[in-house]
């Protein structure tokens, strides 16, 4: 049995990675497990994501305390010193009580020792079993010993025990003896687990189960995931758009939405949420790749563009890229006459039947309705990420993962278990800049492998000739414990202050450099690892090989010699937060931080807590908010500043100073470590549809309020008309407010229940009931609410004739005009953000064209802003439902905890530095810095770097014409020296 104080995160997709990093960054130890042999979940197969159509997974990497991990592409791997990763591992059972769980896990051996595998692939060529490769969605074959994802690091193979015949050919072929065919799964019992997070994601629907789409029968019908592989440059056709059956270049592609979703016949009374945008993205990428001959069409029921930026993205796809959106659920897919193309029958907007052939059909498969969470997910102390309940887009998954980490972290810290001791390691090294550079080179000979293939005498001789003090040592195998110990013993006895490790895959060693540094006193930034083996593998002749190795060595030597580290900047963290806005999101964030013992100053513009929403919520949500308000008001660590506003703010993450003004007069300065903006929004106003010209024409929000009144009445035979998307989803307010459809549906259901004889009609463009809220749409139809779709060219019209309200429109289904005399018209006007221009300029942030405060990255860092230490949540950022806003509040608090849980902010190794003597103050660097990590110090007339926010990305250095700004460890002398060596 293993005593463990690690929080267990189950499932290493993006949610799991987010949760694990959230906890690791706040000082928890985490064990991240996944039943697959590789990390990344479904995202490992996707190369492109909305909105910029690139992958941005790395944006989830830690941005403060970066030296605790490795800054690599997260699709390749995750390296953080607080995170242990166990792959091919599943949970068998969870026992015990919240805070002290006993978890039994079963781990299948990978069959290949990662420390020894060099990735040479000899094993693969010997294996005679060949099956279809899951990663490439079946477009390629793989062996029983294989690489689960092509880009993973380290790229060692694993054995698929389900297909392996245990013949031993691979074991015999392995040059480093790294293969072990003992496939007995190991059962581990982990005790004292403080919390478990379930982030397993959901299973996708298998369209092969139904006979409608020809999936499995027609080779040119593929799933959206498979199409993602076709798009990928690491895919079956190197990113060229060919089709599987005959390699024909694709031109006409159809996307079929709602495959396995929104279908009560298979038990899928839900929307899978992400597929609409997924399809638009794929169609857009495909259209771009194909060029002007592209003919792409998306067959849909409702285009669920409910995110803040989705509608404009879709509009561009339609207008600029010419993607056709056809509102018709496809019945079935058939082979076309030539048997290669496929035939899709559908009805166009006028109801005419059309048979159209396509080169290929892509099925937008959603969540498998049969998928269920394991029983232990409902245990106390086990927290389930929402993305493990239903299919979600990246933003939703990332936020829900942070919510789960917040809950888990809160439960653990309440139990009194302390966070990790901060920075036990040595921080300050002897002032090496004063010492003469002295370099120790350790050459690993990889057993006896490298001995005969390199001219060692020449290497030794030439290295001796190089300027500077260099010691050289050869060690047989530093990857095994003996070699490692031997090296440490030797390093302890040298006076060297720089280390060059020439071995194999540097990524295996980089995570261990910190340990090495603690043991030897050499600074991590004065160590380098180079890959000797790969150089040897690439060249054929002895002299050439030796030359290549020498060249590489000299490059590193020059870099190391010219590197002069400076002491890291550090300052204490103020353990308190400023939260602006006391709506659902702000209140939730305040509680999240206060229960973790951090002081909170809550600044609210109005005199009342609870936000605008308290006027317009359903009774249930109102109660939730009321409870929240009471909790906040009574919390000793929360100070409320009502009728107050922020007038000035400056500082760095961990140490901000903000001036606020209360009641229009009293000014006060607050010192705080983080800022959370939850500025909220309000109901949009309208003048459309004769609003206010008759008191029976109301907004949806007003109707909701009236429905709560005891004296509300319409005639029992009343005709009630709802109009959705009023002034929304078209310029200038071209976004979906996300809340109106659900509100209209609920109000319509209430009306139908109270007045069973009433006629309730809803004019809509697309019903936005994503996720399980689809059930409300189904219920509304079951209750007899009638839905009439309209489009922008054909909006309904409202007019008043001698006091009677007449609503005209047309029913595209029957292709007939409709004409109602309405007793009540409800206009879904949507929401707009509260004006935030002042705040945005005070905090140096950006807004969208609609005035929402813009986040750092809408998918991967949804609650961060461009400035570290300042977070954003709720309607001020994007339209959201009350529960979503509260989730964002929690997620923002979790992000803030990364800073608040530290005593000091310490700059990472690679950050930018300004050499003021050279600086012309042109401010180019400030313009180009993507992290807002630079500011002008007007007093000193200097450009300064915020070392906590600086990510060392180097954009400033690239923009600076005369290298007045440089990146620590990448000074020109070293780089030019390395180039010199390479020439």
């Amino acid at each position, binding site marked *: 049995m293993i005593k463990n104080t690690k929080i267990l995160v189950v499932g290493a997709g993006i949610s799991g990675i987010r949760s694990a990093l959230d906890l690791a960054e706040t000082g928890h130890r985490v064990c991240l497990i996944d039943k697959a042999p590789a990390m990344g979940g479904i995202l490992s197969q996707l190369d492109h994501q909305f909105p910029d159509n690139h992958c941005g997974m790395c944006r989830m990497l830690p941005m403060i305390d970066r030296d605790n991990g490795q800054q690599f592409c997260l699709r390749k791997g995750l390296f953080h010193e607080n995170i242990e990763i166990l792959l091919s591992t599943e949970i068998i059972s969870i026992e015990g009580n919240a805070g002290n769980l006993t978890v039994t896990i079963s781990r299948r051996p990978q069959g290949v020792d990662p420390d020894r595998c060099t990735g040479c692939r000899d094993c693969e060529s010997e294996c005679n079993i060949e099956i279809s490769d899951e990663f490439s969605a079946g477009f390629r074959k793989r062996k029983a010993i294989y690489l689960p994802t092509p880009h993973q690091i380290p790229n060692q193979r694993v054995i698929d025990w389900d297909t392996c015949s245990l013949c031993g050919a691979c074991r015999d072929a392995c040059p480093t003896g790294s293969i072990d065919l003992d496939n007995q799964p190991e059962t581990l019992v982990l005790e004292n687990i403080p919390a478990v997070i379930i982030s397993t994601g959901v299973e996708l629907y298998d369209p092969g189960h139904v006979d*409608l789409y020809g999936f499995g029968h027609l080779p040119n019908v593929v799933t959206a995931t498979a199409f993602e592989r076709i798009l990928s440059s690491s895919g079956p056709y190197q990113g060229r758009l060919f089709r599987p059956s005959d390699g024909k270049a694709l031109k006409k592609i159809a996307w079929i939405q*709602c495959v396995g979703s*929104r*279908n*009560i*016949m298979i038990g899928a009374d839900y929307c899978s949420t992400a597929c609409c945008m997924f399809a638009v993205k794929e169609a857009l990428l495909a259209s771009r790749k194909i060029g002007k001959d592209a003919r792409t069409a998306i067959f849909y*029921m409702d285009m669920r563009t409910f995110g803040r930026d989705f509608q404009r993205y879709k509009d561009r796809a339609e207008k600029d890229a010419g993607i056709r959106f056809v*509102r*018709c*659920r*496809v*019945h*079935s897919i058939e082979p076309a006459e030539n048997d290669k193309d496929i035939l899709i*029958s*559908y*009805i166009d907007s006028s*109801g*005419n*039947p059309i048979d159209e052939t396509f080169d290929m059909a892509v099925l937008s498969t959603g969540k498998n309705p049969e998928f269920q969470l394991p029983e232990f997910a409902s245990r106390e102390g086990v927290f389930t990420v929402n993305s493990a309940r239903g299919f979600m887009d990246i933003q939703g998954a990332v936020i829900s993962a942070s919510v789960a980490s917040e809950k888990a972290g809160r439960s653990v810290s309440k139990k009194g278990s302390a966070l990790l001791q901060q920075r036990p390691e040595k921080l300050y090294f002897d002032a090496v800049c004063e010492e003469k550079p002295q370099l120790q080179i350790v050459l690993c000979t990889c057993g006896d492998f490298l001995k005969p293939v390199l001219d060692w005498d020449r290497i030794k001789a030439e290295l001796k000739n190089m300027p500077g003090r260099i010691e050289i040592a050869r060690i047989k195998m530093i990857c095994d414990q003996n070699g490692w110990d031997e090296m440490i013993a030797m390093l302890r006895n040298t006076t060297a202050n720089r280390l060059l490790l020439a071995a194999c895959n540097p990524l295996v060693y980089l995570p261990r450099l910190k340990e090495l540094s603690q043991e030897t006193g050499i600074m991590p930034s004065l160590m380098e690892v180079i890959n000797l083996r790969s150089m040897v593998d690439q060249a054929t002749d002895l002299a050439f090989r030796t030359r290549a190795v020498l060249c590489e060595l000299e490059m590193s030597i020059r870099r190391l010699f010219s590197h002069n580290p400076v002491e890291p900047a550090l300052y204490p963290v103020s353990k308190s937060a400023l939260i602006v806005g006391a709506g659902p999101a702000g209140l939730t964030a305040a509680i999240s931080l206060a229960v973790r013992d951090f002081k909170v100053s809550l600044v609210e513009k109005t005199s009342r807590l609870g936000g605008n929403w308290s006027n317009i919520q359903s009774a249930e949500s109102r109660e939730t908010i009321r409870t929240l308000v009471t909790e906040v008001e009574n919390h000793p660590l929360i100070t409320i500043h009502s009728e107050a506003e922020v007038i000035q703010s400056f500082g760095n993450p961990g140490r901000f100073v903000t001036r606020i003004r209360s009641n229009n007069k009293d000014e006060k300065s607050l010192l705080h470590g983080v800022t959370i903006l939850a500025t909220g929004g309000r109901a949009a106003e309208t003048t459309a549809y004769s609003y206010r010209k008759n008191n029976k024409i109301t907004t949806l929000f007003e109707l909701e309020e009236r429905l709560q009144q005891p004296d509300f009445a319409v005639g029992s035979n009343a*005709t009630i008309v709802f109009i959705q998307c009023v002034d929304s989803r078209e310029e200038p307010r071209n976004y979906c407010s996300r809340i109106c459809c659900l509100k209209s549906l609920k109000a319509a259901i209430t009306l139908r229940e109270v007045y069973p004889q009433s*006629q309730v009609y809803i004019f809509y463009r697309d019903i936005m009931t994503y996720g399980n809220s689809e059930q409300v*749409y*189904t219920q509304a*139809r*079951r*209750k*007899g609410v*009638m*839905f009439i*779709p309209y489009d922008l060219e054909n909006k309904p019209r409202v007019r008043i004739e001698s006091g009677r309200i007449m609503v*005209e429109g047309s*029913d595209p*289904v*029957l292709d007939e*005009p*409709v*004409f*109602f*005399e309405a007793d009540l018209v409800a206009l879904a006007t949507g929401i707009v953000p509260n004006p935030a221009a002042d705040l945005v300029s005070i905090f140096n942030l950006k807004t969208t064209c609609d005035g929402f405060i813009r986040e750092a990255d809408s998918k991967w860092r949804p609650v961060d802003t461009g400035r570290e230490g300042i977070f954003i949540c709720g309607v001020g950022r994007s339209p959201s439902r009350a529960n979503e806003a509260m989730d964002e509040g929690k997620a923002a608090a979790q992000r803030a905890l990364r800073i608040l849980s530290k005593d000091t902010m310490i700059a990472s190794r690679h950050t930018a530095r300004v050499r003021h003597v050279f600086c012309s103050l042109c401010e180019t660097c400030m313009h180009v810095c993507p992290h807002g990590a630079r500011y002008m110090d007007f007093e000193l007339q200097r450009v300064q770097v915020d070392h906590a926010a600086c990510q060392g990305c180097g954009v400033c250095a690239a923009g600076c014409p005369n290298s007045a700004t440089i990146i620590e460890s990448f000074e020109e002398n070293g780089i030019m020296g390395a180039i010199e060596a390479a020439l």
Partner: protein
Amino acid sequence: METITKRYPSVIKEQAPLRPINSPVDLCMACGTCAAGCPLTGTKGFDPRKIVRLVLMGRDSELIDSKLPWLCTMCGKCEHACPMGINIANLIRAARGMVEREKVPGMIHKGVELGLKTGNNLGLPAEDFVFIIEDVGAELAETPGFSDFKIPVDKKGANLLHTLHNKLVNTQNEDLVHWWKIFHLAQEDWTIPSQNWEGVNWGLFSGDDDAMKTFIGRIVEHMEQLNISSLMYPE
């Protein structure tokens, strides 16, 4: 002045049985699946989606008075893919059943009436029927291997009651023998009733539940009378 649009209760909806999943017509989201899958969509104004919409609006008479219900083969392909499980074929059948009987097109209702009166949709008397089948049976007996073949009419205690499609008796006599051959070689204990041998239930087509029940009832009666355990029914 335009006509005010109103929704009325639909009798068709009430009469069309629900599918096992219990989903009424109301669940329709006008997604177009049915219309996309139906080979008849667009022909003479036929469109299953529109039909469902009419029923949803309670505009039953428009459907009943049209020929649309009679164009449909009630094949069920539309509802096979309907995500809401709306039983469109049953809507059609219910609508057909509400058509005044004399307005039922073609021979369907005539057949039903004849069937009710005579026991078969052709109105063929029993002796003529027995004559025809025995004549065909005698012909078969001349074929090698079937020399001892004889048609068992109204045989009590037989294992299997064989009913016939009227078109085989009427025009396509040559197709009568296939089953007989099989029965003969399989040494089946079978019989054909001289009365009510009709194996086609046109009540199904006309939407006439009462007639349908009568037809079935007669056959069951037969089986009880002749003490026969199994039935061979061509449709």
